[in-house]
């Protein structure tokens, strides 16, 4: 008999197309392939949130790894299996905010968080996008971590006001206020770019 992942005996299950709730229930019962599919599905989004929050690739990597390990340990406590992504975002945001509270304001921005160019069919456009992301990443470090979290969750990760309120522990109304302040300050910071 193979591992609980079941690959040796039964061949790979089509875990890539399964919904979160199904994967969470399976992972909770020790199905490693199901948990691996969840990590594969969300690692990019959680890493990018952590990278834009901390502007440090090492911190982002540590936080992403921790978030998924905590997820594995706490799977039995995730009551609503379909709410798994919200749980991941909440845990990741809290880990980022905790780290930033311990860190001096305007910590070092490392090269990876600023240099974001990738191969592209249109190098000029890719370079422009890369420079814009770098400028925005820098501007994000100049607003408060709480505003940054709200702005990233809403604008870059498309989470609802209600969900963001649960993630940062406030009301949807307060989230709207914080988002408006973040947008205004980011626009001011970006107005002097280039």
């Amino acid at each position: 008999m193979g591992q609980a992942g079941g690959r040796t005996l039964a061949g790979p299950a089509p875990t890539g197309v399964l919904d979160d709730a199904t994967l969470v229930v399976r992972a909770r019962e020790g199905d490693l392939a199901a948990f691996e599919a969840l990590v594969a599905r969300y690692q990019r989004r959680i890493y990018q949130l952590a990278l834009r929050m901390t502007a440090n690739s090492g911190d982002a990597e540590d936080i992403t790894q921790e978030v998924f390990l905590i997820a594995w340990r706490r799977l039995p406590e995730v009551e609503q299996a379909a709410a798994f992504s919200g749980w991941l975002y909440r845990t990741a945001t809290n880990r980022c905010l905790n780290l930033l509270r311990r860190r001096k304001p305007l910590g070092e921005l490392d090269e990876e968080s600023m240099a974001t160019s990738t191969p592209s069919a249109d190098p000029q456009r890719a370079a422009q996008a890369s420079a814009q992301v770098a400028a925005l990443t820098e501007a994000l470090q100049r607003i408060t971590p709480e505003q940054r979290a709200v702005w990233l969750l809403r604008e870059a990760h498309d989470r609802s006001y209600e969900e963001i309120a649960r993630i940062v522990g406030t009301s949807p109304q307060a989230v709207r206020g914080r988002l408006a302040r973040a947008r205004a300050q980011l626009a001011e910071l970006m107005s002097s770019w280039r």
Partner: protein
Amino acid sequence: MALDSTVQGHGLPCGGSVEEVFASAETGRWTEHQLGCEHCAVARRGVEMLNEATLALLDDPAEPPPGLLDRVMTAVRAELRRGDTLDLPALLGPASVSSQAVAVVLRWAADGVPGVRARHCRVEADPENPGAVGIRMGLSVRYESTATVPPMLDEVRRRVAAAMAGQVGLVATRVDLEMVDLWDAEPGGEST
């Protein structure tokens, strides 16, 4: 672009606000004042820069390090607790198999039925009948009509029992199925 956030919204020295500039940028409709005002022009530039950069960020090319997934899974495997085991019929000595591993095989068999996604799976030995087991499985099922569900469940029972016998070597005397979720989209779609 000097901001006065003590007034309603984020006021500009001209009496306008950043919120108004955001709103105009969204609709593409600019007032005469906004078009002629230097403060609004600076705010407009900031808003447009932010909007463009936000679009670029939505396509964020930053990727997690290639080894991250493996490191997570290595740590997870180290913490994996093997649960119950099932005794297997054996000639030369005791043999057993992890219930978790059997559940993976049975879910895979159930998943083979179009429109079925297996969720929880519990396999218990029949204490009075060596080599026999009872199976309880939860299913998320694509719902088309009341007519399509019973044959779907029959097929799941048949495949699960066959996998138990053919791949594990135990006889399923009972396969209890529970529909825990219904969905009407294609696989990969959201549950309803």
